[in-house]
């Protein structure tokens, strides 16, 4: 789960990280009022779960409250990478003397959170890593010990030669690490971490990604989810306990298991089609899940054919068959459906389906080929 810049900043500010004053606005009026309260030049920043806001025109400097209103009016409602901007952060502008980068990612290779810091901040850190790797210090953190003081100081000295700045940065590193651990992050970054004209080390932007598995035990973090900033069908799927990702194709896929779901999508492509989605109904075989899955798939107008691929292990294929029958009775399908079922209770499932006018196959390749043909204008068998 991603949270917004302003939410990440709230978390960091509470832990003591120096961050310029700022408030969230959903209307130009509010933006103007906030700018007036701040009483200096402000920056108006689109709050969306997408990178490249700056290039897309989602970040603007405003010298006066009136100007803040105008910039907010321009940014609110704009589309950035397909997402509509619903909120802007209005925050005091800083005079930047130098920009650095500080981030932590949960790294699968070292099996640890890894700090990455670079005095070359403000730009894409992956580009720094590719072009000038010597400008990045990567420091894996053993969570049994936490971020030790000497490590924090080493990170600080990598950014700044001056003791006072290195100390200030090392304190921010401790706070960023605390935020990372307390919030259950998979990613937390401050970019840019600046030194202002007065010599203060300040976080100007912040980003956090949360491990979804942490949300159950961190209700205060789970509450930060902003469903208005997400694809509605994905919100719908998540609330139905389905894993769903919308794609650009026209073959709607419904599969049990993530690996098989990906393999099914790949096979669609292999036979010349394009998958409309990733959808994993998971291990349990609750017919209601199937009903929800069909609703979500069919709500996408670009879907021209639906493909079920179910390998019954724990999943009982008769439950899936019952789900399909129920769902299509409630909402008759407007596009053809191709069903592949095999494994647990396969015979019962086949019987249920044929009694209700559906045909089904036990062969994956055959089913995929048929679905692709239907989506591209062929006929169901």
């Amino acid at each position: 789960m991603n949270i917004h810049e302003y939410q990440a900043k709230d978390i960091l500010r509470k832990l003591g990280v120096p961050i310029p004053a700022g408030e969230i606005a959903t209307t130009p009026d509010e933006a103007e009022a906030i700018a007036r309260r701040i009483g200096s030049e402000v920056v108006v920043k689109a709050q969306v779960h997408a990178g490249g806001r700056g290039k897309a025109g989602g970040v603007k400097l405003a010298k006066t409250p009136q100007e803040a209103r105008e910039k907010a009016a321009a940014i609110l409602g704009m589309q950035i990478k397909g997402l509509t901007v619903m909120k802007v952060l209005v925050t005091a502008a800083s005079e930047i003397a130098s920009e650095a980068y500080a981030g932590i990612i949960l790294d699968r290779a070292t099996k640890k959170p890894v700090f990455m810091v670079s005095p070359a901040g403000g730009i894409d850190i992956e580009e720094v890593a590719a072009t000038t790797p010597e400008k990045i210090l990567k420091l894996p953190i053993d969570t049994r010990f936490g971020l030790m003081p000497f490590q924090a100081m080493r990170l600080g000295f990598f950014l700044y030669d001056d003791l006072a700045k290195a100390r200030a940065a090392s304190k921010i590193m401790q706070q960023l690490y605390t935020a990372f651990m307390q919030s259950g992050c998979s990613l937390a970054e401050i970019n840019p971490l600046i030194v202002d004209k007065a010599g203060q080390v300040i976080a100007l932007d912040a980003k956090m990604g949360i491990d979804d598995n942490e949300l159950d035990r961190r209700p205060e973090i789970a509450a930060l989810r902003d469903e208005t900033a997400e694809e509605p069908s994905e919100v719908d799927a998540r609330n139905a306990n389905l894993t769903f990702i919308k794609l650009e194709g026209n073959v709607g896929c419904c599969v049990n298991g993530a690996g098989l779901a990906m393999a099914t999508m790949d096979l669609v492509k292999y036979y010349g089609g394009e998958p409309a989605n990733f959808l994993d109904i998971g291990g349990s075989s609750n017919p209601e899940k199937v009903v929800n899955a069909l609703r979500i798939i069919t709500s996408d107008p670009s879907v021209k054919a639906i493909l079920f691929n179910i390998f019954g292990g724990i999943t009982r294929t008769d439950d899936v068959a019952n789900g399909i029958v129920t769902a299509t009775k409630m909402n008759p399908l407007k596009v053809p459906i191709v069903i592949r079922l095999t494994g647990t209770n396969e015979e019962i499932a086949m019987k249920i389906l044929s009694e209700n006018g559906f045909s089904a196959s036990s062969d994956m390749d055959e089913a995929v080929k048929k679905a692709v043909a239907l989506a591209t204008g062929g006929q169901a068998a």
Partner: protein
Amino acid sequence: MSIFINKQTKLIVQGITGRDGSFHAKQMMEYGTQVVGGVTPGKGGQKFEGTVPVFNTVAAAVEATGADTTVIYVPPMFAADAIMEAADAGLKFIVAITEGVPVLDMTRVYPYVKESGARLLGPNCPGLITPGESKVGIIPGRICAPGPVGVVSRSGTLTYEVVYQLTRAGIGQTTCVGIGGDPINGTNFIDCLEAFEKDPATKVVCMMGEIGGADEQNAADFVKHHMKKPVVGFIAGQTAPPGRRMGHAGAIISGAAGTAAEKIAAFEAAGMGVAKRPLDFVELVKARLN
């Protein structure tokens, strides 16, 4: 022969009285696995299915039964503790089925288990099966058959699909291992490849990877430099968009890293057979068995 488990494996089930634990404990017992005990705090002294003793702690279960292996079916927030309890009790092989374990928990679990000298499989994995001898986890026994092929995979149902195709084609398996789809897990591809290379009964290895991380690339490197036996590989997620988690916490393309293309190229560079679709395994394995 086989890897990790066999007829002698003495298993305890952590969470044996829970919904999933009890269901699968029965399935494992029916398959022939020696389920020697179970653990559920507060149910110590009871018998599961009238025969299997239940204990309050893993330490008590190990002491009473001499178990060497455990399988864990407990809710995600308790899984890290359950794994560490198993390692602490001296169990040498720990299979964690639980899905949804926070990755930060695993950053502590991993070094703990390593220091204890145990092997962890999972979490978020289907377990493993040595057809005809023992199954630990949730892989359906009836899709497998004994034979000369080692199978290792990050995925559950995709494994079933491939094993099912192999079995239907008359090709049995030594052991089928699901290592799980989480970013940090206890046993990786290389651990399994190494074990299959050493197992005299295994003649060919099938390996199903997916997008995300560099485990498959590292495994390909291992195949190239340390394996004499032929390996056939597959990567799921060729159509996955970057930056989106495809169900598994570990199945995510970060920037330009962890793509299917990159992994398939690594397989090819290692001289491995590459299955373009699950069905291809059958012919590729057949060709290498002769």
